[in-house]
């Protein structure tokens, strides 16, 4: 009885873990990657468009705003987000998406986001970063 219960519980856990790996491998839902150490932190935000039209957003988080603050992006296209911190640790959560990142001083974080619906998506700083942390918001406008 005990052994069967233990095996069922462990088996279920194993199944859940395989489901997570499958989502990572097959659907591309993953945690942020580890960029090579040659990728150095940047101190100014910017928006780049690659020759193939792919949009790349470079965000700098600083006490207590994101740079750039408002960016328009196309609906239905993958957009690369890169994130640096200019001072302390910040959070970066694009509402209603899986883009949920930490901005860690001394390193660059990265994720790819795609909007299926047009709209205004707030980017919330969700790591305490000092007195005015609650005012640290940026917006992505998907059109």
């Amino acid at each position, binding site marked *: 009885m005990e052994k069967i219960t233990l095996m069922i519980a462990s088996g279920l856990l194993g199944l859940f873990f395989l489901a*997570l*790996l499958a989502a990572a491998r097959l659907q591309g839902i993953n945690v942020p990657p580890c960029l090579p150490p040659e990728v150095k932190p940047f101190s100014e935000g910017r928006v780049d468009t690659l020759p193939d039209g792919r949009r790349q957003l470079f965000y700098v988080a600083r006490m207590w705003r994101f740079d750039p603050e408002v960016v328009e992006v196309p609906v239905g296209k993958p957009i690369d987000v890169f994130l640096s911190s200019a001072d302390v640790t910040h959070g970066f959560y694009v509402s209603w998406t899986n883009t949920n990142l*930490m901005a860690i001083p*001394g390193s*660059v974080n990265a994720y790819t986001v795609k909007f299926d619906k047009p709209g205004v998506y707030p980017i919330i700083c969700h790591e305490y970063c000092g007195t005015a942390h609650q005012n640290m918001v940026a917006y992505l406008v998907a059109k």
Partner: protein
Amino acid sequence: MTTHRETFQISPLSRLLMTIEVALPIVLLVLGVYHGFMQTLYRAGIIQSSSFAGLGYYQGLTLHGVINAVVLTTFFGVAFGNAVMQFYLRQPLIPWVHALSTGLMVVGTLIAALPMLLGAADVLYTFYPPLKAHPAFYIGATLLVVGSWTTFFGWIPLIRRWMSENAGKPMPLAVLGMVVTFIIWFLCTIPLAIEVLFMLIPWSLGWIDAINIPLARTLFWFFGHPLVYFWLLPAYTIYYTILPREAGGKLYSAYAARLVFLLFLVFSIPVGLHHQYTEPGFERFWKGFHALLTFVVAIPSFMTAFTVAASLEHAGVQRGGRGLFGWIWKLPWFDANRPIVAYSLAGLLIFILGGLTGLVNASYNLNQTIHNTGFISGHFHMTVGGPVFLIILGMSLELFSQLTGKPIRGRGWNIAVPYLWAIGIYIFSPAMMIGGLLGQPRRTNMGLSYLDPSSPHFRLDWVVTSYLAAIGAAIMFLAFLIYIGVWIATIAAPATKPAGELYLATAEILHEDAPTTSIVAKLRPWLAIAIVLIIVSYWAPLQQALRTSEKAAPYTPDNPVPVVQVKK
């Protein structure tokens, strides 16, 4: 295992020191719980201000985390451990070690409390650099931890003597539980000590300009997750030894209980990277490896759920319960003379959802939807704020009663506390978790922006969950006020029994205990596996953290200009 029915009389010095260990955190808890409730009012926009009654939101949040999650739990682990060692080993503690350890913990707590109360340490209980607190905050916290180590070192000669005098007997189960608790605590606070002593203290004093932030965070989370088991294992010890007895039954399997403690020893530390899934700089393989081990460390908790439920079923059947579920209603849920049963059962009801949501957090890519949202706070209020907190409340009062010889007064009110708390939690935590799924950040004074209808950042979709969280918190706060009332009534009552007579109810065992030749009667092989697994799981992540090219200067939380400028 022998069943101890006789009490153990402790020395007057030990009685005084243990009374301090039990009562001091309860006094501080008034401040800690008060601000827990206040935060929900700020977050719902009921208070739209950066401070209330002289305490800032983030200052109160720091007090809430440090007092409730660190000071209370450490003092309780030490006080309960001291009770277990003296009662089961039938030996007094070494007086000077006991005095030194309690002294260090009290002095450390006071030194750390001062900058927090003066607003010079608004860095929350995780004190993530580059935010910097006053050096006294780090120094006080260090003394608290060193004091708790001292307690543990003082137990070792007592245990050795007991083992040599009782050859052929396995270590009493409660002693094993508390020894494993403190081995985990000692191992996991070593990297914390490295972070604090070699990075944060010299940096906050201005002796070094800049530190490696990913390294500091990795050392912190090396400590931060095993901390959870330091909170939980004293509660598990009570679930395995006191609860079955008080509920009227026997422990279903001592073998399973021993195996559970040893599995925690092996698997509770090499899992810290699951707090760092959303950070750059670590290879995905190692995040996945820690995710896998986090799933493994869930197994001893599942085994505990099984064994405790089986023990309770046995108790309910002994009390006349029939059928598949009849035993549940026969348990002494509302027996005012056995308050620890009420505190334990209410804690278990909360822990069902607390444990399951913990698996969600551990789930690698699933964490992308909930990291740093209210989901996390909702979850851990159902673990550390659920069974752990309730067991600490119930057992602290019981220990205080034994240490002073005063009977608990307001016994009916006392058993209302855990159930009222559970009702509050079952409103508060789901509200926080649903809010988290809607994107509400944790640790944020939302009343100043997202919950202020006049702000451009106002979020209508967060209003309902924020208010529900405040309603749940109000019920929890009421439960705590009743608890404090029970304390005051108990203190005011005259002693009716000799002071300092320790008694820990101990369940008999339904199935036979393990022989000393069994693998679960040994500690060293498990400790060796634990150390190997720590090295395997942390070697590469630490190397990766060390590759960070730029170090960071300190900042105070109110100023975007660093305290010292660092040349890049």
